[in-house]
């Protein structure tokens, strides 16, 4: 197990290198540069800017220079937010995205699995249909529709919650977490229901029931673990997406998370900022997939990653 983990972690390096290379050159291929704006720059000023940010070096030299920086975890200065380095921007934005993401995912996991199990146990009843109907709605209504409705009702009309903004307090988290959690909850509920129905028809459940165990014990002790397998494999990448921030949620609720940096950075050709968040996202995906594999092995004794154990 340990050797497997080490191998996986070492595998991170070539993957990341690939990611950095592709992202770096893709950014540079995009037309326009970080300093293009409607107000044209006199050539001497443009030259000064390019010199300051080393954009006048040959591209390969810039690439290796950047790799050298990344190796010591220095993502360089942001082109757009000139008073801050990319490291500082990530350090300020990531905790916010992470808080919202982890809370939303936890909420989605708890509510989603409970609803899914409830629906599966009452398969093809009115409860099942209405729960799955709501879940379908949750998946299909985009969050940029749900968010304004929630704001209008809970913040503007009722005045219970702030309409946006971020002070790190509980009240300012409620709406974004709720909005972010809704589609994931719905998805997890559907996954859980499907998987539960399948598991309930399998032989080991029949055996458990034949032993005369009460239904609640059958569900909790025997069914739950295999039921969670597909949910966990969904949650890994979804978690990476959620804790690295959602552009839509951040814009609508005006939350200073990481999500906007992907879009704003790309639009502004803020090379260093985009690279910084892409690398972070890459690391998160790889790590979370790794965690998923570990949980998988723990949930399903049939899966083992190396021969020795």
């Amino acid at each position: 197990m340990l050797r497997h983990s080490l191998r996986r972690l070492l595998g991170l390096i070539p993957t990341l290198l690939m990611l950095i290379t592709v992202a770096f050159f893709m950014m540079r291929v995009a037309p326009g540069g970080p300093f293009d704006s409607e107000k044209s720059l006199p050539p001497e000023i443009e030259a000064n800017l390019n010199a300051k940010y080393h954009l006048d070096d040959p591209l390969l030299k810039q690439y290796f220079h950047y790799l050298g920086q990344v190796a010591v975890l220095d993502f360089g200065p942001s082109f757009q937010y000139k008073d801050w380095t990319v490291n500082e921007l990530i350090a300020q934005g990531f905790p916010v995205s992470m808080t919202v993401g982890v809370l939303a995912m936890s909420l989605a996991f708890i509510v989603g699995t409970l609803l899914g199990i409830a629906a599966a146990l009452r398969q093809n009843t009115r409860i099942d249909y209405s729960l799955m109907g709501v879940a379908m709605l949750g998946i299909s209504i985009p969050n940029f529709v749900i968010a304004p409705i929630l704001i209008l009702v809970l913040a503007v009309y009722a005045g219970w919650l702030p309409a946006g903004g971020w002070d790190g307090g509980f009240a300012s988290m409620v709406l974004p977490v709720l909005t972010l959690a809704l589609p994931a909850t719905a998805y997890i509920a559907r996954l859980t229901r499907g998987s539960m129905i399948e598991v309930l028809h399998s032989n080991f459940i029949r055996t458990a029931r034949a032993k005369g165990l009460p239904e609640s014990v059958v569900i909790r002790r025997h069914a739950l673990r295999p039921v969670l397998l597909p949910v966990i494999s969904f949650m890994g990448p979804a978690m990476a997406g959620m804790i690295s921030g959602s552009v839509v949620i951040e814009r609508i609720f005006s939350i200073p998370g990481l999500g906007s940096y992907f879009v704003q950075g790309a639009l502004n050709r803020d090379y260093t900022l985009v690279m910084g968040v892409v690398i972070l996202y890459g690391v998160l995906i790889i790590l979370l997939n790794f965690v998923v594999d570990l949980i998988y092995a723990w949930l399903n004794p049939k899966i083992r990653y190396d021969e020795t154990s």
Partner: protein
Amino acid sequence: MRHTFLVASVVVLLSACGSDDPQQPPTRSDQLTRPVELVFGEDGRPDPSVLAPEQVLHRDNGEEPQTLDPHLAEGVPSAHILRDLFEGLTAESPEGRVIPGAAIRWNISRDGKVYTFYLRRDALWSNGDPVTAEDFVYSLRRSANPATASNYAQVLLPLNNAAEVLSGQLPLNKLGVTAMDEYTLQITLKDPTPYFLGLLNHSSTYPVHRTSVIQHGSSFSRPGNLVSNGAYTLKDWKVRSQIELAKNENYWDAANVIIGQVFYYPFEEQSTALKQFRAGNLQWTYEVPNNQFKWLQKHYPEELVISPWFGSYFFGFNLEREPFVENLDLRLALSMALDRDLLTDKVTQFGERPSYTLVPPGIRDFVSPKPEWADWSQLERSAEARRLYAAAGYDQDKPLRIEIRYNTGQNNKKMALAVASLWKQVLGVQATLFNEEWKVFLQNREQKVLTQVFRAGWISDYADPYSFLELFRTGHGRNDFGYSNTLYDSLLGEVASERIPSRRRRLMFETERVLLADMPFIPVYTYVTKRLVDPRLRGWQSNVMDHHYTKDMFLLKTAQEAASEEAAREKAAIEEALGEQAEGEEAADEGAVGEESTSEKSTSEKSTGGEATGEEAADEKVADEQAAEPVEETDTDGPST
């Protein structure tokens, strides 16, 4: 036991956050309470009795400022904050006139090339250091220094040797700025630049505090490090969340600065700002959602403020590419075929003014030369357009096929669609629309290879028509039209070196006339600024540059606040009468309840003391106000934070 682990950890996470203080900002319901009538005191300042007890302003700033280093700043969000933090040699009045800033007066030499500024001797930095001529010399040199890499340094180009210093050909000390003595500064210019005083309130010319810039380097603009000379200081900066400014007590005019605290929020989504405004958490929005004019006009008629901006929206022709090379008839036809009244009424909808010229109205003494057909009816214009279209060699069987390029944006898309359909309707033109991402669009425009007709716009940094006219100069970096006319260029040259204002205006009029006769672009409308402003916020005025200094603003108390104060006063008067019969201690108790504002607390305590003992008339009045105010407070008018 194992499978409870996940659930347990989730619960821990949830409860960790649940333990946070629920700091719910108070909301003021959907309706903004109406302000009391504004009364001015003898000094021309608002009378203290009409001012809200809490002078805290919440401004939406559209997006995160790129920087608070004045010499690196570009973009409107930075400029708004920097105007509060710093003060240039000149400043602006609420209506946009140039007024003395850090310089109290100045002389301009006869040839218009040497400016001598006399600095205020009472001007201080926020840390107490005096603002000296040497600070300005240091700052202007820093701004022009190639190593600073300012991308707005072209504001400095009128200065002597500025171009050479910027390109590194001359050392910094050759820049046309010298300190004559501690409080006298001399700036020499290359050409007489009549709008130069207006440039001196642009952030590129702001002073920065020498010792703190040297000490902190590139992080001098962080909270805690930033030393500023404007009406406010930087207190806190949470990236993409909020920027908090506090009144600068060392500012020379601090006695007249009423708003004590300003919060700038980067609400990127206009609808979010609107909701915040409706919830009473903002007094000033950056913009309003583009498609909600009717709704806003109906529900927020008093709050919705729309005023002309010093900017033009137009379409450019690429004169280097067919079909527009040497084809004046066709360009005129396409311009005349557009019903601008229809476009502003139905497409933009916010009261934008139809435009037939390049320079927008709003500059004192300057009127643009309107083409003759601007005064025709649209029927006449369309008829003439059809005639010119035919003269250019196009007809039903052989229609013009062109591409309209625009950058991503709801309004640009609607506008391009409307233009295309008007052209089709009036002339039968077959136009294709091309939407491009901003940077791609800019590059295509500049290269002049792909473009035919493209969206363009210009909002000037300084209040002078020259800023618009020079766009069409041969070789100008943003001359994406490929327009080149020697007469036009030489007229522009004359404008640049003319120092007598009336002659200069005539020259600019003539220059624009030449341009409009060649029609290398299609004027469409003049931009407007549109925002929601709390009616309680006063002291500011609409101006074409859309520059608004927080130091001029103040918040009125609401009618409700005033009414409850009035009621409280009456109640206190009754209690007073009763109190005469009762013992003095009771009155003192009442007084102790009234600690609405800490600054007035001492007065309150003193006067209750007076009440208990002497019952003097003057003391009574103060005591009444203080004592009973919170008693009558209703739940709707809680102060917004």
